[in-house]
């Protein structure tokens, strides 16, 4: 049943992609068009497949060259395309945080629920924190950068169309409707006209100066989904940057909902950890 619905959803979605590709120029001129573009980009960026699993290698670098490498397994399952999602994360490296697990239930409209398991003291704690501001596992990515920000929270406007790295792109400016709802003043996104991959994003702080730059450094199709396998977030103000490489990406594994539960924090399923 769920599978059937998913197939319908996929078909509908592809049809929609195709149609809107034809009319893209038409809707690009209306403000609603820019918002639609961002919505579809978010779907490509954060909702590909019903579920996915990947091994993420993160390199965190500070200005003076100090480096921290983190390796983790990450699984995602969409509860609803464009809506709620669940993430399960298992840390592999460095050794002292090995077997730490992290569970996120993401809701586009409010702060996500997060649980963390600390194997050293065998303790699960729920964490209540602000998604807009807190960093994703200490990196330059925020939770929003990893799991998306609700498109409705911003006003979007198409700035121009141009070529970026050989691709035809839309350049969209997004300004938060509520100043307090974001850590940035506004952002500018470079969205591929063809497949809606987000190639680049610039975040400006509330005083209007550039603060962070996201770039998709390597994108390849996996199981038919354009997948950003290497991404970079540079904080141009601090000189820190984080590079995240997604390896062994697999979609539509049919991950069980039980993986994304408090119970599996302490005992992640063997099949997952392998």
């Amino acid at each position, binding site marked *: 049943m769920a599978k059937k619905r998913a197939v319908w959803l996929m078909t509908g979605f592809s049809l929609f992609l195709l149609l809107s590709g034809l009319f893209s120029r038409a809707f690009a001129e209306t403000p609603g068009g820019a918002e639609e573009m961002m919505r579809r980009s978010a779907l490509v960026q954060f909702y590909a497949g019903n579920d996915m699993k990947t091994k993420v290698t993160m390199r*965190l*670098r*500070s*200005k*003076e060259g*100090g*480096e*921290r490498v983190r390796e983790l397994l990450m699984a995602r399952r969409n509860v609803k395309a464009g809506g709620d999602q669940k993430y399960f994360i298992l*840390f592999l490296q*460095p*050794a*002292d*945080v090995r077997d*730490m697990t*992290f569970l996120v239930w993401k809701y586009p409209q409010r702060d996500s629920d*997060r649980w*963390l398991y*600390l*194997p*050293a*003291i065998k*303790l*699960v*704690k*729920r*964490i*209540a*924190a*602000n998604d807009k*501001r*807190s*960093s*994703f*596992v*200490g*990196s330059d990515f925020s939770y929003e950068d990893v799991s998306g920000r609700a498109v409705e929270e911003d006003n979007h406007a198409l700035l121009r169309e141009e070529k970026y790295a050989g691709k035809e792109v839309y350049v969209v400016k997004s300004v938060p409707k509520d100043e307090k709802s974001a850590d940035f003043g506004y952002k500018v996104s470079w969205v591929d006209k063809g497949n809606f991959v987000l190639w680049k994003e610039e975040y400006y*702080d*509330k*005083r209007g100066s550039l*603060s962070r730059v996201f770039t998709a450094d390597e994108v390849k199709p996996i199981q038919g989904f354009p997948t950003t396998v290497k991404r970079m977030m540079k904080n141009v*103000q*601090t*000189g*820190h940057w984080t590079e995240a490489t997604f390896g062994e990406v697999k979609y539509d594994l049919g991950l069980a909902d039980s993986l994304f539960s408090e119970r599996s924090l302490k005992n992640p399923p063997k099949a997952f950890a392998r």
Partner: protein
Amino acid sequence: MLKRLVQYRRRLVEFSATHPRFVVGLTLLLTVAFGLQFPKIRIDTDPKNMLPETSQVRRYNDQVEGWFGLHPDVIVVGIRNEGGIFNPESLRRIERITDEVLKLPGIVARDVISLPTVDDVTVDGDTLRAQPLLARVPERAEDIDALRKRITGNPLVVNRLVSADGKVSALYVPIEKGANGKAIADRIKKITAAEKGPEQFFFAGDPVARDTFGIEMFRQMAWFSPLAGMVMMVALYFMFRSATLVVANMGVAMISIIWAMGFFIGLGVPIHIMASMSPVFLMAISTDTVHIFNEFHFRYKDVREKREAILQTMEATATPITYSDLTTAAGFASLAVGPIVPVKIFGLLVAVGTLVILLMSFTLVPALMALMKEERIERVNLKKDPGGVVSRLLYDVGRFATGRRTAVVLAGALLIGVSAVGIAWIRVNNNMIHWFKAGSEVRKADRVLNESLGGTATLYLVADAKEEGGIADPKVLRSLEGLQKEIEKRYPVGKTVSVADYVKRVNRVLHDDDPAHETVPDSRETIGQYLLLFNMAAKPRDLNNVIDYPYRKANVVVQLQSWDAVDTKALLEQIRGDLRANPIPGVEIRPAGIAYFNMVWNDEVLWGMLSGFLASCVLVLFLLVLAYRSFWWGIASFLPLFFTIVLIYGVVGFVGKDLDMPISVLSTLSLGLAVDFAIHFASRFRQRYGETKDVQEALLWTVARPGKGILRNAVLFASGFAAMIFAALTPYVTVGIFMMAIMLLSAAATILLLPALVVLFPRLLTKGT
């Protein structure tokens, strides 16, 4: 060679006396040309730049700032409410001010630290809550009370962001490199001024003091050096009653300042606060002109013919003027040998200015004398002999000095001996906050914040474990914790924070906020997981300030309640002792931060300055011996300089004033003045003795006639610079007092000590003259 130079000099003087209008015109033209360079001026008001950016301490500080995401310049804004800040109004004010400050240009918004921007991790049953210390302002009394308990009970926060008594809260506002601390503080002041409540606001921190000082320094220079000049012009007028003389005298000073400054500005050299003092120095050195006019005054009375009087005057004064200007120039130029760039520029600037003064003495001054109307000189001199009383008095002084020669010399020796004791007490120390007067806003803000919080000066102790993950070792963290405990007992430490405090905090929070768990856990894994947990909940910046990315280095932030370089030095000595007694295996600890920088600055700049000054003194002594071709005359004419400096330093020691930057700069001034007096005295005495071969007569004549020039000079400058005692910055007050002391002491030493010595050791000092 020397004869040829004397020839040139004579021709120059003759030419100037013959074509005065041409000389004056040309001088003015050149002055305009140099003056046109002034708009190109580049001012550097940052005392930090006394050490080049490539200096080791600045490089290391830059590195440390990079490792830990720290900022070199942080403004501290203190908010005090006598009734306590934990009430909805005060808290809302803090919130509003923070919001407004975050929008200011030139500040580093992401790293502003205040109650609404710093994350706190608390526990609430099964939930860890990460939110700003002040997420939203509570209204109900019990919520306010809970907030107060939560904040003042958090060791990461208390005495840093909020005082233990809850009356003071602080905002730490880092500013971008190159931003002006005073300008930003002024904008924050506008924000706080809009808040009408019982709170008081205080602005402290190194950039506020530094930039306020830099700007004030230039401003007060613009006020007080012309003021000193005016007072001197008035005094000069009453001495000579001749406007031409006054104009000539001040003109020479002005021209030397404009030429020398214009020359360096034209070369693109930045004018640093140190070089901004050079007008004062050049004004003082240009006193040569007074000697010339003093002599001209006497000569004209003798010969009654202007041109002849000019030539005779120049003949008599040329040698001492040349000697004194050349030794002064050499003394200042030798400052350029040292490593500190602004000191070099200052030394060269004054040296070039001194050479300009020398040139003017042989060109502009005779030209102006030639332009004076004869009847006017006549009238001045005939109407009254203004020096008559003074000359007679000086005659008596000369008789006293030669008659009671043993007593005079012994008194001098005694004073030097007593001063030596004072010198032993001298403390070489610099404290930029003390460059402001005790009642000033900067001093007050610093005092208030130091009394209620951990301290406005920051020292970093950077622990390097030499391997990745080394800091996350429980043994290392416990050692850091132990070190902090030791340090916190020491003066002037008010507060320390390290990664150990964060780990302890997480440990406590995870154990249901049980204070018994405010400890460093036993396993490396637990520590690693705590750190990751903290990073996942709060802003990574907070941890980054105390531990680097690979967990190889940790930063112990030490807040100091004193800006005294000597206090930092003593503290670091003690810490070194602690570490020798309880070493942390495998970990090396190095100091950094602004407090450490100030300490190094103190050592390098002050000691550099002092050693440069001592080297200059030796050089001057050497030149004096060379000039007189007599070892003993070299020593004798060096004595007033020696006497002046020893006495001043002695008093500095006895009074307990620190030997700081202003004093060390001003010491060099004695090179220009004391030597000047002594050379005039010695040269004129030797000339006179050569003519009359009567020691007693020559001495009395010298004391009465060139001595009058010396005395006039001394009084002139003492009165001129007395005005500076009323300046708002202590360095200027020091300039005022120092200038008077140098003038009076070196004049006294010259007029009393030298005649006494000559009669006491006649064979050593009359031989060969």
